[in-house]
């Protein structure tokens, strides 16, 4: 079918016939590489849409010759019947196209039935639209004329030089050759022009009488005529071959673009990358502005950042339609054809990921071809996105396995840490219920102490667990205020008075020390844990220094002790959860430093440790200077 207003007749008739025979029917379209006006394109898409609407399938094929295209299509799809419209074409058209379409179809159809439908006579304007100079994008008649004229003149000159050695008749052959070569470079009418000009040049410059058009020898007339015919035919054939080749090249380019897209998609490792690649490829292949729309968290379609086009809310409603109905819409289609972009769903069988929008930068782009290729691209894209989604799910699956494992080990640690002090409390308190024991005041005191200590240890562990779980759940909820570290450390030292009783603690924090924006209790916990660690892991009498300093951006607190130090192989693990140096140390949770790290980091700070065996350990905490003004 063509972009003709009469195709509709044809389409409806074909459907009726197919229904009568209980057969499938197709609307066939041959892409001869020729460009169509916007009006013609509209007609064409309308016709294509009609075909789909009436239940037919659309098949397309690229071929510079419509007839061979149709025949190929028919043979490939095992068509039994071709319905074609008969139109009145100009004589010359038929002549140069080896007879009318219909006639040729008849000849080449072979076994296939052919119904010719007499469509209403085309009026003058319509036929002109068929016969008008079919200019393809690359044909420029003026340029061709110049090229032809110049080359013919050159050949004439050369001919003159070799004339003494060869007959003038042989020169004619040279001209034929020239026309054949020129047809590789010029357009359709350039070829005809070349034939004529060459012929006249031959006649004028070489045929006796020389330098006149007149021909003396009657046999020369036949020669000249034959020359014209041969030149024209040769030229035509070469032209056609070249056209076919260009079409083939275009096809190949598109396929290779698709291949490249598929390849890049398969190696892209993230959704962002995939979309970026897609936009780039599609834009290049179709010479188009590309827009990719995906759903954001509020279920609205939004344009992805790498898109090269921009769309307004009207366009987005078209895109929304496409997303919902999973069918193309927009420019070049039958739904919302006035839109600026053509929209395709990015979807696989199972899920719709988004919408792809295309706006070719040149208007002459051909609808059905673009549509089917673009659909293929968007399918590729959808596959790529689906694959990424699968990937994420797998990762999540692996993560949940890992966390299950951690859970188990955590539960083991926790239950041990809870049961031990509870056992001690239970034992001591049940002993206190023994009437016989109550006589001895000393014993009572001891037992009571045991209960007391056990419960303190329990409390500490439960607090540590709570802290760790706050860190694990993401950023712990922080009530930020302006915290004076000097103050805070004083509070901590007071709380740990008993533990640090036999230690030599010196605090040196300069007066101008800026405050930090922090949650008081979290930072309090940080220093409590660090200092308690010292009490737990070093001997009484150890010197402890707490030194504060600051510069423009950061506040630093260093806690130094001259205790036994931490062995090198353990240093990198001390911030791990449940890690304990000398694993048997009871009363320590193994969580203290993990909590320190977690809390410091949630304040956007940094904690580090340096230690030498036998010399001591130094913890350095850096925190950003506060901005809150209270």
């Amino acid at each position: 079918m063509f972009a003709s207003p009469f195709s509709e007749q044809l389409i409806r008739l074909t459907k009726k016939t197919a229904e009568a025979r209980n057969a499938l029917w197709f609307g066939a379209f041959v892409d001869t590489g020729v460009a169509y006006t916007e009006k013609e394109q509209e007609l064409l898409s309308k016709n294509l849409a009609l075909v789909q609407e009436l239940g037919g399938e659309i098949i397309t094929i690229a071929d510079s010759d419509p007839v061979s295209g149709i025949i190929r299509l028919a043979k490939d799809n095992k068509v039994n019947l071709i319905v074609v419209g008969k139109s009145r074409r100009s004589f010359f058209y038929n002549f140069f196209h080896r007879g009318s379409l219909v006639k040729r179809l008849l000849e080449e159809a072979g076994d296939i039935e052919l119904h010719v439908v007499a469509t209403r006579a085309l009026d003058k304007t319509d036929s002109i639209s068929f016969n008008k100079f079919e200019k393809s994008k690359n044909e420029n008649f003026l340029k061709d004329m110049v090229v032809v004229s110049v080359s013919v003149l050159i050949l004439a000159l050369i001919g003159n030089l070799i004339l003494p050695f060869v007959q003038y008749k042989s020169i004619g052959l040279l001209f034929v050759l020239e026309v054949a070569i020129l047809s590789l470079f010029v357009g359709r009418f350039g070829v005809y022009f070349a034939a004529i000009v060459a012929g006249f040049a031959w006649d004028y410059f070489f045929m006796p009488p020389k330098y006149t058009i007149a021909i003396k020898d009657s046999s020369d007339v036949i020669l000249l005529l034959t020359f014209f015919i041969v030149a024209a035919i040769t030229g035509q054939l070469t032209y056609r071959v070249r056209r076919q080749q260009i079409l083939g090249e275009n096809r190949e380019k598109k396929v290779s673009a698709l291949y490249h897209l598929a390849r890049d998609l398969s190696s892209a490792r993230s959704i962002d990358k995939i979309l970026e690649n897609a936009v780039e490829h599609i834009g290049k292949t179709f010479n188009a502005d590309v827009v990719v729309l995906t759903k954001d968290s509020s279920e609205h379609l939004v344009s992805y950042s790498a898109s090269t086009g921009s769309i307004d809310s009207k366009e987005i409603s078209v895109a929304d339609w496409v997303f919902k109905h999973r069918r193309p819409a927009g420019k070049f289609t039958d739904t919302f054809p006035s839109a600026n972009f053509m929209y395709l769903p990015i979807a696989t069988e199972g899920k719709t990921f988004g919408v792809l929008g295309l706006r070719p930068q040149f208007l002459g782009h051909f609808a059905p071809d673009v549509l089917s290729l673009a659909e293929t691209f968007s399918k590729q894209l959808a596959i790529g996105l689906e694959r990424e989604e699968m990937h994420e799910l797998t990762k999540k699956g692996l993560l949940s396995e890992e966390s299950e494992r951690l859970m188990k080990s955590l539960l083991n640690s926790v239950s041990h840490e809870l049961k031990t002090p509870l056992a001690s409390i239970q034992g001591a308190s049940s002993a206190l219920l023994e009437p016989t024991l109550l006589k001895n005041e000393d014993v009572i005191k001891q037992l009571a102490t045991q209960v007391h200590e056990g419960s303190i240890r329990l409390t500490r562990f439960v607090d540590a667990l709570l802290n760790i779980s706050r860190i694990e759940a993401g950023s712990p909820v922080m009530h930020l205020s302006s915290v004076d570290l000097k103050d805070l450390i004083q509070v901590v030292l007071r709380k740990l008075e008993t533990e640090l009783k036999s230690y030599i603690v010196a605090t040196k924090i300069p007066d101008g020390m800026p405050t930090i924006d922090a949650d008081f209790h979290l930072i309090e916990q940080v220093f409590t844990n660090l200092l308690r660690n010292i009490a737990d892991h070093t001997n009484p009498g150890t010197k402890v220094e707490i030194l504060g300093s600051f510069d423009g951006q950061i506040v630093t607190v260093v806690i130094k002790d001259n205790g036994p130090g931490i062995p090198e192989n353990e240093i990198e693990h001390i911030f791990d959860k449940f890690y304990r140096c000398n694993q048997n140390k009871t009363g320590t949770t193994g969580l203290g430093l993990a909590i320190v790290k977690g809390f410091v980091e949630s304040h956007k700070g940094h904690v580090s440790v340096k230690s030498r065996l036998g010399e001591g350990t130094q913890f350095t905490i850096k925190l950003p200077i506060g901005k809150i003004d209270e």
Partner: protein
Amino acid sequence: MNEQIKKPLILTVDDELAIRRLAKLTLEAADFRSIEAENGNDAIQMAASYRPDVILLDINLPDMTGLEVLQRLREWFSKSILVLSVINDEQTIVKALDLGADDYISKPFGAKELMARIRVCLRHQIEELGAPTFSSGDLVVNLANREVFIRGARIKLTVTEYDLLRILVQHAGKVVTHKQIVTGIWGPRAPGQIRNIRVHITRLRQKIESDPETPRLLLTEPGVGYRLEILDHAVI
């Protein structure tokens, strides 16, 4: 004439039996009288009937919030109310103090701490601490003459520093909120100057503490305010 000094009566209000029992045992062991209430309504009734000297009031009660009970009590009860709070819940503590509570204790609390706080409340009641001079550890403050001595030696304080010290002395042993300090020094409409207070506290500590880095007198109650401790004997 021997005046029968009645043992102080303490009302403990808490929905947890364990807390009430612990309070009762501790108080009676310290030779105080103790009564208990389980919820807000009972508390108000018992306060009206028995007129305790100190009420220990849990912030989290089943029927009315502790703060509501506090407000109701403060409409007529002028004696000490100590709020029993959840640890790290400074916001509620400050609210309670603003509503008229005298002090707070965080649960879990030790018996010693409880008794110390109750004793401070009682001392304020009998105006022992309303005297013109106050002493704690090395610090002696003569409120009448506005003179401050450390280990007998007179020290100079700026006006703000003295005002700050004065407010702390007036509440000696009890916590003073930032708001109370600001209002006391600069008046009720002054914007919150917590940062300033901090600076003054530091300066004050340097003047009155034997080791400013490890304060014994002027303590920080994080998130709430400050407390001037009543030390019983001079610290070496």
